[in-house]
Structure formats: structure tokens, C-alpha cells
């Protein structure tokens, strides 16, 4: 589904990713771990289509298509979703109206009809229930004044609504207390199926107790320093990144 080859990425003239290769197949869960500043968010932003980052070398393929020239919205239409490490606050537009616009934009881009209002409402209720989100929360301005945990839960709510084929979750566990972590993780697990894939980015092992990865990669200094199965995460937890 996702194939990254020898990816080099710079921002403001500084090279951050220095040759990352990664392949994610449908049905898989991958975890990317690594110390702060190692380039994890850079990698997810580049996949999502953030134009501030410049790909200087290498390729990203999504379902065998080179996506280099696609805009962020076009990538979304193809089924790529990123949960932001720092979701943006947007006063003046409610969570509900935002998600309605997003859903219908995607449908339209795929040549489909808009979702009827009652169906939309039903889906919103269902997904809000899944993530134990209060309905009052949905009529608040998007992310404005949300706690860290509320923002993350709202990201996963959007993911649940948009049903992407590839979801990249950038530090979705940070800011969540243990109960919220369990709710979010169980939501992610319920949304998982044999046709989609998830990339979980974290620098703590604890999320991986709930979302069990098929593969674990360690990103260090702009490169994948090591790959393994879920035991690698446990070893890292014990021995620290210096051990790599």
C-alpha cells in the first residue's frame, strides 16, 4: 500500500530525513519509534503532503502511484489520513460542521453524491459513541480550548468518520491519560480491518500495549536504524535509544 524508497527530506535547507525506506502492506500495523527530533513528524508530514517539506531524493508510492506531485487534499481523497501531533485550533467552525464538510469534499472528489443529512447524523453519533465523545463536544469550535487529550480524541474521531485506507497517528498517545488512551486505542483497533493499514508514531512503549504492531521501526538521526517485531519496542523501553 505504502512504499517509501530512500527518502531524503529537507526543511529550510536543513536535511532531516536522510534515506528512509519503508513498506507498509494492507492489513498491517507499523510502529515508528525514536527520540525527540529524530524526524518522525517530518516523515508523517511528508506522507500527508505538507509543502513546507522538500523531498530532495527518493520516492513515495501509495497503491503503486508516485504521490510526489499530489496536494494534501488529493492524498486525502486517495485515503491517506494523518492524526496531528499538534492539531490546529480553528475558532468559528464547529467539529460537526467541519467533519460534514470534510466527508462531503471527499465524496465529491471521488465522484460520489453528498451524504444525506440523516445518514451523516447517524454516522457522527455512532463514531462519537465509539470514542465516548459527548455530543456537546461536537458543537464546540474545532480544537479551540480543547485539552491535549480532547484534541487527540477529536483526531481519531475524524479518522473514524473518514475511514482512510492508511492512517498515520503521530504521537496520538501524548496528552492522554490512561483511560483516554484505552478508549482511543480500542477505537483504533475497531477501525482496523484487513484492507487498511496503520502507522503508529510514538516514543513510548505504552501505546503499543494496546495497539499491537506487526512491525516496529526505530528512527534515529533521519534514518531507520533498526526494524523488528513488537519485542523491539519492549527492549527499547528497557534499554533506551542509546542501545541501538
Amino acid at each position, binding site marked *: 500500500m505504502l512504499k517509501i524508497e530512500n527518502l531524503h527530506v529537507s526543511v529550510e535547507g536543513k536535511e532531516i530525513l536522510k534515506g528512509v525506506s519503508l513498506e507498509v502492506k494492507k492489513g498491517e500495523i507499523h510502529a515508528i519509534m525514536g527520540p525527540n527530533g529524530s524526524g518522525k513528524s517530518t516523515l508523517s508530514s511528508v506522507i500527508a*503532503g505538507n509543502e513546507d517539506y522538500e523531498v530532495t531524493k527518493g520516492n513515495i508510492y501509495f497503491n503503486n502511484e508516485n504521490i510526489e506531485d499530489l496536494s494534501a487534499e488529493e492524498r486525502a481523497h486517495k485515503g491517506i489520513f494523518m492524526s496531528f501531533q499538534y492539531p490546529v485550533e480553528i475558532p468559528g467552525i464547529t467539529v460537526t460542521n467541519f467533519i460534514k464538510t*470534510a466527508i462531503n469534499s*471527499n465524496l465529491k472528489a471521488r465522484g460520489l453524491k453528498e451524504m444525506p443529512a440523516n445518514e451523516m447524523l447517524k454516522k457522527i453519533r455512532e463514531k462519537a459513541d465509539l470514542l465516548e465523545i459527548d455530543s456537546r463536544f461536537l458543537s464546540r469550535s474545532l480544537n479551540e480550548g480543547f485539552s491535549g487529550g480532547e484534541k487527540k480524541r477529536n483526531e481519531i474521531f475524524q479518522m473514524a468518520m473518514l475511514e482512510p485506507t492508511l492512517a498515520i497517528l503521530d504521537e496520538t498517545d501524548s496528552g492522554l491519560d490512561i483511560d483516554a488512551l484505552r478508549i482511543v486505542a480500542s477505537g483504533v483497533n475497531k477501525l482496523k480491518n484487513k484492507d487498511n493499514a496503520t502507522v503508529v508514531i510514538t516514543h513510548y512503549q505504552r501505546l503499543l500495549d494496546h495497539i499491537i504492531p506487526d512491525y516496529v521501526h526505530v528512527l534515529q538521526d533521519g534514518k531507520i536504524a533498526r526494524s523488528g517485531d513488537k519485542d523491539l519496542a519492549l527492549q527499547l523501553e528497557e534499554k533506551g535509544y542509546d542501545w541501538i
Partner: protein
Amino acid sequence: MSLKEKLVSSFLAFELDADINSPVHDIRSKSIKEFEKIGFPDRKNEFWKYTPIKKVLSEELTVFKKKRHLIDFEKVKDFFVGGIESYKIILIDGTYDPLWSNTTHKGVDICILSSVLENDKYSNVISRYYNKLIDNNESFSLLNSSFSKEGAYIHIPKNLELDKPIEIIHINSGGESSLMLQPRNLIILEEGSKAQIIESHYSLQEKNTNLSNSKNNHIDPLTNTLTEIYVEENANLDYYKIQNDLDSTSIIDNTYIDQKKDSVASCHTFSFGGNIVRNNLNFYQNGKNINSILKGITILGSNQHTDHHTLVHHASPNCESYQEYKGIYNDKSTGVFNGKVVVDKIAQKINAFQQNNNLLMGDHSSVNTKPQLEIFADDVKCSHGCTIGQLDKSALYYLKTRGIPEKEAKGLLTYAFANNVLENVKMQVLKTKIKKIIANKIGVSLGFEL
């Protein structure tokens, strides 16, 4: 002959039938004399620095209307807020239109000003309230006081909470060029009363636009309106101005609001078009625990220009004022926000807040924003802030990652930027109407019900 000379010399003819012993005639005569002294402001006048008002002061303008123009109800109806019952005062080219209006004298006066100015029964009202708040150094206020004969008169008695909102609708028929209209409103909310008022200005397309040379001798109309409002003790007023006019028409609006203790008054100004629109909105706080709320949304395009000059005069302690204005300027449109706050020495423990945020969407759009604080008390809280900028790039990216295309994402963010100012609008139907106008102005279809 300059417009000033022309207006001064028109005055005699204009007042030909007037009762020379009436107090109103006296006010008019004094006003025209003052106007003759000071004339129109020019760009050297600090108060008018950024608004080229001369541009719309053609010597062809006249206060005399040639004939009455009728308008279909279908067209008039479009200008109603709709979806609610309301009292209505409708003026077409400055003349009251009884057909579509809905006035009352039952326990409350909601009617036309001429019936008050010409009726001895109301002499107490005139002597107590009429022309008492205006700034005698302001040319357009003087001009309005000289020539105004019609407008709304609203008088809400003590402790009455009005059952329906009031709509004052000014319609320019487009049937006559060169008209200078001078509407005038007098509004009194007595102690403990409560009212909601919506005042709007609309123009119909000028007729004969198909005649290619008609533009040559066509002079765009100018409306010079003035409103005096008294909000007595513990009374509560919500006032909404909708200025959604053609590119060709201009409005000068002077509004003077006098508040007594424990009263709350809010004024929302929605400026969505017009050639030149100038709003002088003045609040005077005379008593403790007064709250004044001034909010505005300006969305302009083409060569339109809007100028908001606000004044809040804190003359009493323990009061609050809250100003929040947002501007969205497309194409070559331009704007001004000048927020003046005066705090007298005795006005301790007041809280004055002022915020003006602007989005410049056009390459040639611009805005001048300036807080003007004159504070003579020492124990006060005054804050102000302004921003001029573009849409937040990170917000735009966030929306795009959710599959919302660039154009829609920009529209949504622009809408969100303005929408925030509507939170105090209590009338749901009005809120929806304004939201629709905003969405329309921004030119995107939002993927949700408004």
C-alpha cells in the same frame, strides 16, 4: 455652485411650508447655519483622513425628490429578515411606505418620525430628546438635522419587553439618480424596557442601465442617516445594522447612543458593500454598571470602502465596553477602523476592551486600523489589539489534509474568522440570514446547513 452652497440655498425652499415657530424648525435653522460655517470635511481633517468622502459629494446631489417610485412587494419582501413576526418601518427613497409597514401605537410607539415632529402632542418628546446627543462639529450630523423629516420613531415605555423585533428598512428604488437622503431615527427605551431593532439599507439596480450613455449623467445616490438612541436605567437594547448595498451607493451613518445606569446596549454593524460607507458610532455612558457592546463584520470586494469610527465615552465608574470588529477585504477594497475610547477622571474601575482583526485577501486591498485611547482615570482596565494578515497557513493545511480543497478550505476559514463575531446575536433567524450573506460574499458553498 458647490454642493455646500447648493444645499444651503435649498434650505429656504425646503422649509417653505414649515411653521417658523416650531422648535424643530429652530433646530433645522441653527443646524444649517452651523453647517454653512464648517462645510464638508476634507482629507486634512484627521477624522476623515482615510476616507475620500469628496468623491461622493457631487454638486448634482439634491434633497428634493422628483417623484414617487413604487416597488413590488416581491422585491421588498426579500429585504425582510423573514421567518419571524416583526414591526416594520419601510422607507422607499426616504418616503414612508405604509403599504408594507407594520407600525403600532398600542401601549408603545413604533411609527414614523414625521408624525412626531409635526404633532404638538409630542412636544415634550421633542424638547427632551430630539437633537440632544449630536456632535455639532460633525458636518453630516448638522446636515441631517437641517434636512431630515422622516425616519423611525420608537418609544418603549417603562418595563415593557417588546414582543417582536422592529425592522427599519431603507430602500433606494434606483428610479432616481442624484438623491441625497437624510433619514432620521429617534429611539427611546425607558427604564427596564427591552427591544431588538434591525436597520438595513438596500438599493435596487438603477433603472435604464441598458441605455449605454445613461451612466454619464447618472449620479449615485447618497444616504446620510442619523439615529439618536436613549437607553434608560436598566433597559436593554440590541441594535443591528445591515449595510448590504450596491457598489454605487454610499452611506454615512451617525449613531448616538446615550446609556443610563445598569443598562446594556449592543450594536452589531454588518457592512457588506456600498461605494463608500462611513459609520460614526458613538456611545455615551452616563451612570454606573453600564455595558456597551460594539461588534462588526465588514466584507468588501471590488473598489468598496468602509470606515468605522467608534467612540465609547466612559463618563461613569464601574462600567464596561467591549468592541470587536472583523474585516475581510477582497480585490481592491479598503477599510478603516478607528476605535476611540475616552475615560473621564471619575470613571474609575471601568473595563474597556477593543479588538480589530483584518484579513487582506486581495493583492490591492488595504486597511488602516487605529486605537485611540484618551484615559484620564488611573484605576482602569483598557486593552486593545489589532491584526492585519492573511489566512493561517497551518490551519489551511490542516483542512486540506482532511480532503477539503484549497478554495473551500480558504472559504471555510474566512467564514470561521467572521462567524466568531455572531455569538452575541440572540435572534436565530437573523443569525442565519447573516451567515448566509457571509457565505455568499465569500463565494463558497459550505458543506453544511447554516
